[in-house]
């Protein structure tokens, strides 16, 4: 290698003091897709949420990912701000992440493949990870899973995390790594805001939109969970361009489902899943 070149005259980052000032001057910048800390400083909360209960305020970038530990009873609201969000979701039992979302059990045990208000997400251990308290979208996908590097490379010319067209699976790799988890922990996912309908012959009809802006989904954590989200175009999105828009996340503490909770008691399978969950924390 050659000797380094001369410093540019008048550089604002030519010495550590100047570089520190330069870095610090960037603080306070606001962009659309970012976390807001503390969460209570963010806008866009439901009216009745107390500041002390606000635990997560972040807008997930187009192509971005995020994760969070949520306490039992926490509500997680996702808002498809511009109508083209596509949020794939992984979820784990925080204290024992080998227990995690099981998509096959989720659809089999509810006798239905379509998610919506009143349905729940199950672990492989017969317990409830999340309930769906509200759903203004109605277009969600339990079948098609996450995009991957090979598929994004075919569709968009690239699929790498370092490029302009990241894929959901590699977003998940990074997302779970932040919780000490690895590629074996990246399990079959569900996807919110983009749908998949199944024909009588098994054909998958994707529901891609774009949809009306502002559709919301509210989940309730029924266990202490790690949730990891990736916001990348749906794997069956037919559009040639990498089309996805930011999604707003708001989470706040709330009460754990009580014995009279309507969703808990909605079906025999739901009741037994909640009983299993309550039994797990009965220690």
């Amino acid at each position: 290698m050659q000797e380094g070149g001369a410093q540019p005259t008048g550089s604002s980052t030519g010495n550590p003091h100047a570089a520190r000032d330069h870095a610090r001057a960037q603080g306070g910048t606001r962009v659309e897709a970012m976390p807001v800390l503390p969460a209570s400083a963010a806008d866009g909360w439901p009216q009745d949420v107390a500041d002390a209960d606000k635990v997560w305020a972040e807008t997930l970038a187009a192509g971005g990912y995020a994760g969070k530990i949520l306490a039992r009873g926490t509500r997680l609201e996702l808002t498809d701000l511009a109508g083209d969000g596509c949020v794939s979701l992984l979820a784990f039992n925080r204290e024992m992440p080998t227990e995690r979302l099981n998509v096959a059990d989720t659809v089999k045990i509810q006798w239905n493949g379509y998610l919506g208000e009143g349905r729940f997400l199950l672990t492989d251990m017969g317990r409830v990870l999340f309930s769906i308290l509200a759903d203004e979208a109605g277009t969600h996908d339990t079948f098609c899973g996450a995009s991957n590097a090979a598929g994004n490379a075919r569709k968009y010319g690239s699929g790498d995390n370092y490029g302009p067209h990241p894929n959901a699976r590699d977003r998940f790799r990074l997302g779970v790594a932040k919780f000490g988890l690895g590629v074996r922990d990246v399990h079959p996912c569900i996807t919110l805001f983009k749908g998949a309908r199944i024909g009588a012959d098994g054909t998958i009809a994707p529901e891609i939109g774009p949809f009306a802006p502002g559709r919301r989904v509210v989940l309730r954590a029924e266990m202490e969970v790690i949730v990891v989200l990736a916001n990348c175009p749906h794997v069956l999105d037919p559009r040639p361009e990498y089309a996805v828009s930011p999604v707003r996340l708001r989470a706040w503490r709330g009460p754990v489902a009580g014995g009279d909770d309507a969703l808990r008691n909605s079906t025999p399978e739901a009741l037994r899943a909640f009983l299993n969950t309550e039994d797990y924390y009965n220690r």
Partner: protein
Amino acid sequence: MDIAAGPLVLDETVPARAPWMHGVARGQTLEIIDLEGNQAVDFLLYAAADDAERYSAQDTVAMQGNIFLRKGSVLYSSEGNPMMRIVDTNVAYHDTIGGACSCESNTLRYGHHTKAQHACVDNFLEANARAGRGKRDMVSNINWFMNVPVEGDGTLGIVDGISAPGLSVRLEALMDVVAVVSNCPQINNPCNGFNPTAVRMIIRA
């Protein structure tokens, strides 16, 4: 179905309710024969070179735009690579969405009185443990010979089978794979005709 060709590598009968695991090299075929009819065969695949890469139900159904596996279907991995291809089958379609029964899911579907019954997840865990794999390596599996229709409103379920004695599926390995099977012990739904039976596995070069 066409008669299988190629030198015989392995011909084993998996007893009712039992696990099974075996490698299938690229270019070899694995034939699974439903000896007595309507016996669900729960099935996972791992790449022999790196078992962090495994069969992905979601990649497989997304790639073919259909949830059913039929003659010609390609089984894709979690990294989007082709693992096996259905060379032939004389059953109309096979299941990708029903997953494996477990002691825990049995408590939800049928009641806590079924908790102690043997289940596919326990077979998968036992077979995988011999290869150093654990619970993190469990993903949505294929159910050969199992019938899970989806109705217009999303209602789905395991219903009476469409297989029959002697029907089979034959797969060609497109990479070196390890196949892990649970010969399903379920007795609370019609996936095994309420009577788990043996199946036969034939590998040819």
